[in-house]
C-alpha cells in the first residue's frame, strides 16, 4: 500500500472541521489474459491507486479524489470535496440530517482463500487459458470460433472516517470463462460457461476444472445447434440457480436499493406486506452464505460498515431495503453495509453483494417429477428489468418437461413477467444451492462485482423463443 492507516488519519485530523470526513485509499490491480481462436489476444495489467475523499458539509455531500499521495495533494483534494459540498448547500432541498449509527469496522479484514493469486505465475495462467481455448476448439469440427478469458482483481483498501472506522481491507476475485460458437448449415449458436469467485487460485477450480468448463461450453454449443425453439406460452418454469440469481438481483434487488426506493420504485411502502409466496426468503449478504466464495463477497463496505446478511423478503413478507448510512437514517433502519465503490475515484453507492433465495425442502427430482408441463431453464443470459419489476431474461438452454420427465432440449428461451407476480407463484423451492452469476458485473453508474444464486425453484412465467 502507498499509504498507512496512520497517515490517512493524520490527513483527516488536519482537515478543516466538517460534520463528517471519510478517506478511502484503494489500490485495484486487474490482470487479464484473453485468448481467441488459438491466439493470445491480450495480456494486460492495470494498477489504479488513489484516495477518494467524501465529506458532509451543511447536509450536503462532496466528493473528490487524487492519485497523488503527497500531503499537499491530499489536503487540496479534501478542500475540493468541502467546497463542492458547500456549493450544493443553497440548492439542495432535502439535506442529509444525519448518518445512521453503524457497526464501523476497526482492524484488518481478508477473505479466506486457498492459494494467493500472486503466488501463481502468469505463465501458468496463460497456459491454462491457451489450453482451455484449444480444448474448446478440439471438441468438434463444428466449433468455428472460441475465446477464453482469465481475469483477476485484487483490492487493498484503507477506510478511515470521523465516526471511528479504521479498517484495512483485502479482496481477491479471480474469474474464468469460455465461449464457443458452433456453426452448421448456415445456422450458428453461441454458448458460454464460466466461474467467478472471491478466493484464491485453488478455490477457482474447486467445483469444476478449467477443462470441464471448456468442454461444457463446447458441448452446450453443439447440443444447442440441433435444438428447436420453444413455443411461447405462460407456463410453469423451473429455474436453475443462475436464473434465480439473475431474477433476485435484476428484477427484485434493484427495486429494494433504498436510493431507488426514494425515487419511487414499486416496492415503496411495502415493508411488512406480502410480496411473494410463503416459500420465498430473499437475502442480500456481504459474507458468502451456504457456499464459500461468492463473487460479491465483502466484509466491510466502502463507508466502513461491517456487512452482514440482509433479509429482504422473509417467507413472502417484505422486511428490508438495502441501505447506506444516509438512507438508513431516513428510513429509521440499520445500515446494511451496501455502500460500494468500484475504484478510488468512485463515490460509494448503494449496491448489492450476493443476492439469493434461501434453499427450501424440495429435492431437484421431486420438483421435476411433480411438473406436468413446463420448462427447465438453465444458464442465465442477458436480460432487462425495469423500475416496475417487469423483466425479460434469456436462458441458454430450455428443456421441455412433460408428465414429470425431462424431454427435449430447446434453445434460446426467454422468460418474462412482473417480478413480484412471478415470486407469488413460486410453489417449490429446492434444497440445493449454488451461486452462478459471478462472472458478471452490475452496472449502476460504476461497475461492481456481485453474485447471485439459490436453489432450483418452480414458478409461473411467460416463456418465449428469443427470436
Amino acid at each position, binding site marked *: 500500500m502507498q499509504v498507512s492507516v496512520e497517515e490517512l488519519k493524520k490527513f483527516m485530523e488536519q482537515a478543516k472541521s466538517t460534520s463528517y470526513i471519510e478517506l478511502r485509499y484503494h489500490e485495484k490491480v486487474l490482470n487479464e489474459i484473453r485468448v481467441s481462436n488459438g491466439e*493470445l489476444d491480450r495480456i494486460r*495489467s492495470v494498477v489504479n491507486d488513489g484516495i477518494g475523499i467524501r465529506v458532509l458539509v451543511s447536509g450536503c455531500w*462532496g*466528493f473528490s479524489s487524487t*492519485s497523488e499521495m503527497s500531503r499537499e495533494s491530499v489536503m487540496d483534494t479534501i478542500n475540493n470535496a468541502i467546497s463542492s459540498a458547500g456549493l450544493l448547500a443553497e440548492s439542495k432541498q432535502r439535506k442529509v440530517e444525519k448518518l445512521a449509527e453503524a457497526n464501523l469496522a476497526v482492524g484488518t479484514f481478508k477473505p479466506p482463500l486457498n492459494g494467493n493469486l500472486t503466488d501463481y505465475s502468469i505463465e501458468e495462467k*496463460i497456459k491454462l487459458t491457451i489450453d482451455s481455448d484449444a480444448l474448446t476448439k478440439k471438441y468438434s469440427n463444428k466449433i468455428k470460433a472460441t475465446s477464453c478469458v482469465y481475469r483477476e482483481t485484487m483490492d487493498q483498501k484503507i477506510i478511515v472516517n470521523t465516526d471511528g472506522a479504521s479498517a484495512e481491507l483485502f479482496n481477491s476475485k479471480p474469474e474464468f470463462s469460455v465461449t464457443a460458437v458452433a456453426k452448421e448449415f448456415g445456422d*450458428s449458436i453461441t454458448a458460454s460457461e464460466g466461474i467467478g469467485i472471491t478466493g484464491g487460485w485453488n478455490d477457482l477450480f474447486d467445483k469444476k476444472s478449467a477443462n470441464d468448463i471448456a468442454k461444457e461450453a463446447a458441448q452446450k454449443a453443439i447440443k444447442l445447434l440441433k435444438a428447436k425453439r420453444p413455443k411461447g406460452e405462460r407456463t410453469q418454469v423451473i429455474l436453475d440457480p443462475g436464473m434465480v440469481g439473475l431474477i433476485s438481483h435484476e428484477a427484485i434487488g434493484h427495486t429494494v436499493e433504498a436510493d431507488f426506493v426514494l425515487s419511487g420504485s414499486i416496492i415503496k411502502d411495502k415493508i411488512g406486506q406480502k410480496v411473494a409466496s410463503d416459500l420465498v426468503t430473499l437475502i442480500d449478504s456481504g459474507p458468502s452464505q451456504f457456499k464459500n466464495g461468492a463473487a460479491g463477497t465483502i466484509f466491510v463496505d466502502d463507508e466502513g460498515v461491517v456487512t452482514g446478511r440482509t433479509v429482504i423478503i422473509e417467507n413472502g413478507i417484505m422486511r428490508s431495503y438495502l441501505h447506506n448510512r444516509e438512507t438508513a437514517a431516513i428510513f429509521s433502519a440499520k445500515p446494511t453495509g451496501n455502500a460500494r465503490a468500484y475504484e478510488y475515484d468512485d463515490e460509494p453507492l448503494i449496491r448489492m453483494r450476493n443476492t439469493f433465495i434461501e434453499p427450501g425442502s424440495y429435492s431437484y427430482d421431486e420438483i421435476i417429477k411433480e411438473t406436468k408441463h413446463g420448462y427447465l431453464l438453465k444458464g442465465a443470459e442477458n436480460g432487462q428489468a425495469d423500475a416496475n419489476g417487469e423483466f425479460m431474461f434469456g436462458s441458454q438452454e430450455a428443456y421441455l418437461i412433460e408428465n414429470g420427465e425431462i424431454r427435449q432440449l430447446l434453445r*434460446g428461451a426467454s422468460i418474462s413477467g412482473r417480478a413480484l407476480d412471478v415470486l407469488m407463484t413460486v410453489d417449490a423451492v429446492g434444497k440445493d444451492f449454488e451461486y452462478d452469476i459471478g462472472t458478471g458485473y452490475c452496472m449502476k453508474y460504476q461497475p461492481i462485482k456481485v453474485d447471485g444464486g439459490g436453489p432450483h425453484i418452480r414458478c409461473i412465467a411467460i416463456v418465449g423463443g428469443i427470436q
Partner: protein
Amino acid sequence: MQDICKKALDIALKFNVDEAESFLVDKEIITIRVADSQIAESKGIRERGLAIRIVKNGSIGASSTSLLDEKNLANAVEDAILATTMGSEIKWKSFPKPSKITSVDGCYDERLNKLSIEKCIDISLSMLNSTLQFSNVNSVSGSLHVVKEHVYITNSNNVNLHDNGTYIIGNINADAKNNGETVSGVGFNTARTLNAFNAESVGKEAGDMATRSIGARNCDEGTLSVIFTPYALGELLSFVLSYNFNAKAYQDKRSCLYGKLGKQVAVETFTLQDNPRSRDCIGSKSFDDEGVPTQTRNLIEKGVFQSIIYDTFYAAKDNVDSTGNASRSGYPVGRSANPIPFPSMHNIVIKSGDYSIDEIIRETKNGLLVGRLWYTYAVNPEKGDFSCTARSGIFIIKNGEIVGPSRMVRIIDNLQRFLMNITAIGKDSKHTMQWHSLPSVTPSLRVDGIKVVPV
C-alpha cells in the same frame, strides 16, 4: 506530463525491447447528479494514468498505472515486458510512424476547460428547472458531466503527440404520473464547447416527452413500421450495429456482415460513416489512441458494405494499414489509460435523408414512433438478431397520424433484415450518446416489418 510520458518510454527502451509505446491521460471530471428533482451530488475528480506497450521477440505486452513516480513507471514497464515473454509470436508490423496530423477544430474549448463546479451546478439547475416547468412531471433525475482531458502519446518510432479535449454531456429523465401510472421522457445534449451546449433544451425535451406520454395504452402485438428517432436509433447503432464493422469481430467471423464486403447489405438510400473529423462531435479527434491520423470512412455507401475498421494490431493480421480507429475509451467520455487499444468507431454517422419527421409520420399507415430504447443487445451476433425495449416517447401511428401514446414494447428484429427494410430517412440529424456507449449523429429512420410485443 509530457516528460512523464517520455520518461516511461525511456525506461522501456533501456531494456532490450524491439519497440515501445507510452500513452498518458490526465483528466478532470466534474459530475453533478440530479436525483429526486434536486441536485443530489457534486463530484470533482482528477484521473491520471499511463499505459505502456512493449514489443519484444514478436510478442506484445501491456500494463498501466495511476502512479506516475519513477519507481511505479519502472514497475509498469517490467509488467509489460514480463507479459511479452509469455505471448506467442504474432503477426505484427510496428507501432505507427510519424504522420501528418491535421487538427480537427472545435474539440477543445478554453471556457469549458476553466468551468468551475459552481458553474456546472448552475447548468444542472437550468436543466432541472426547465423540466420542472412541465406541471405533470413529478420526478426528475439525470446528470451533467464536464470532462477536460490532456493526452500524450510517444513511441519508439518517434511519434510524439499531444492533444487536448473538452466535453460536456447533460441528460435528464423526467417521470410523470397520471392515475397511478408512471410514464417517462428523456432529454439529452452533448457538445465540445460551452457555446454549443443547450441546458434548457435537455429539460424541455424530457418534460415534453413525459407529458405527451401521459395516458399511454398497450399497443397491439404485431408487425409494424417503426420510426426510430435519433436518440433511440443511436442506442441501436452503438450497442448492436457498430460491432459488425470491428476488425476483431470480422476476423473472428462473428460479424453478421461477414463475407459481404462489396455487396448490397442495406437499401440504396442508406449510407453509414465513421466520422471522427466533424466539429463538436463527442468522438471527434485528430489522431487515434495510437497516434494514427483519423479519417472519415464510409462503412456502408448507398447500401453497399464498403469497409471495416482497424487499429494497428488487427490491421497487421490482415496485412493492411490501420484505419485510425484505435480506441482506449474512458468513462464517462473521452480516453483512458487502458493498456490495450481496441478498434472502435469514433462517431457513428448516418447520412441524412430528405424526409421531415412529419412527412415520415404522414406516410406511415400502421406504426410506432419510438423515442428511447432500453436494454438493447445482440441476442445472436453472428446472425444479427437483436432485442430491445422501447421505454419512453412511444406513440401509436394509424393512417399517417399519431393517435396516442403507447406503453412499453419489446422490439425483436434482425440487423440484416432491418437494413434492407429502411423506408424513410429523416433530415433531423442529431448528436446523441447513451450511457457507456459510442457517440452517434443520426436522423430518424423508419423501418418496416418489425415485430413488436407489448411488455
